[in-house]
């Protein structure tokens, strides 16, 4: 089994196994992306076993805190996924959220957080395959970056 060894005694040396699996926290909106993930399941589409899912009613619910807390708390990556623009179950929740994400994403990059650590995407309830493909892509991006160290809270 793949393993990450954090040697936290002062110097944090991280040995990364070749098939290290990043741990990614995914915030999925209840109506599109969660259902899309369900559809991927029903269709038995295989994708990397890296995401743990937090269900939220709508991407509009997602406060930047959620994403940043996930990073400081040691998740290697974050995925935020919602309905395509115009398809929001709550009319415009994802549009409100999109502006927030756009700014957060830019600010994170401005602060030097590696691009790809936080991934935003749209996947509808019918797009099980797209969901799987994008998760695979997000996993690849996070994997390339290695374990999350920058924003991780050091004890």
């Amino acid at each position, binding site marked *: 089994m793949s393993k990450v060894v954090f040697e936290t005694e002062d110097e944090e040396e991280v040995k990364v196994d070749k098939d290290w699996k990043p741990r990614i926290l995914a915030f999925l909106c209840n109506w599109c992306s969660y259902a899309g993930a369900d559809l991927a399941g029903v269709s038995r589409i295989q994708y990397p076993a890296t995401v743990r899912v937090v269900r939220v009613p709508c991407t509009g619910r997602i406060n*930047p*805190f959620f994403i*940043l*807390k996930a990073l*400081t708390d040691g998740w290697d990556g974050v995925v935020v996924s919602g309905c395509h*623009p*115009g398809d929001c179950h709550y009319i*415009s929740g994802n*549009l*409100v959220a*999109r*502006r*927030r*994400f*756009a*700014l*957060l*994403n*830019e*600010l*994170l*990059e*401005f*602060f*030097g*957080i*590696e*691009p790809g650590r936080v*991934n*935003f*995407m*749209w996947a509808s309830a019918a797009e099980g395959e*797209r969901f799987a*493909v*994008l998760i695979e*892509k*997000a996993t690849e991006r996070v994997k390339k970056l290695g374990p999350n160290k*920058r*924003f*991780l*809270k*050091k004890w």
Partner: protein
Amino acid sequence: MGIEEENQKIEKSIRDIARDLLKNKEVDVIIGYTEGTVPLSTSPIIIRDEKDVDKLVWNNFCYINLAKYLAPRMPQLVDPEKGELKVGIVTKGCVGRALIQLAIEKQINLDNVKIIGIPCNGIVNRRRIEKEIGEKEILEVSVSEDNIIVKGKNFEESFPFSEYINELCKQCKIKSPPKVDSCVGECGEYESVFDEFNDVKEFESKTPDEKWEYINDLLSTCTRCYACREACPMCYCNLCFVDQNKPIWFGKTTDQTEILMFHLIRAMHMAGRCVACGACSSVCPVGIDLNLITRKLEQMVKERYNFTSGIDIDKFPPMMDFEMEDEQEFMLEED
């Protein structure tokens, strides 16, 4: 016209307007700046009496954003019987923007405010001057012609004015407050403000590692005293996110992660609202210059949503609004 002369002219007009406003009972108090007791400073002052208007000054050390005194509804500005007092306020460009932004956010009623608009020619970057003078005591500072002259015991140094003003002032396009109904001084009209944001773009061309290094170094000395927040005219929450404890989204210590979290979230909260007055940097006790982040905030909302804060009282800030056609280039897509 030299800067000094310009300032004297402005100072005179401030006093004249303030005197008239008080005389005609158009306002109950005037908020302005008065001479500081230490070099490189001025002190905000609240004037209630016509005879005190000569205490009002204008120079290049007026770095506090006076709008701050209206935002948290100062007890001194509320009369137990009359309610909120009518206020005249000495308003440079960024103060004017803050007032408009506060009005949009329903924090102040501009009907009670008389904007004594003045054109600002830039605020001296006192942290930079202190730094360059080093361990010598500055006893006197003045601006004459286009130089800042710093005098102390056994030394006198002069700095070119245009170089030694705040970074934000160098970029500032809104020198006098945007025009609203309650302007009594010199207020300008600003449709949209053109800015190339070359400084931000230059920074952004760096690699993530370089940016990370830079930002970390910049913020490493932050003591989490929140002076930046307190000086900010747009920070007026009852309970700031850093003080919330249910849940505790991030710690209150000076750990690197927590400092970054604080500044990142504060930036998020200021996006589209920050009026680029630079008060946060001017007041920081450890001299952290936040202007780069401020500029980034301005650049994001300008380039994404064509919004400049505090100009148009009828325009919603970007975070209150959305468009179907908003850019979403950052979204992950299938290849």
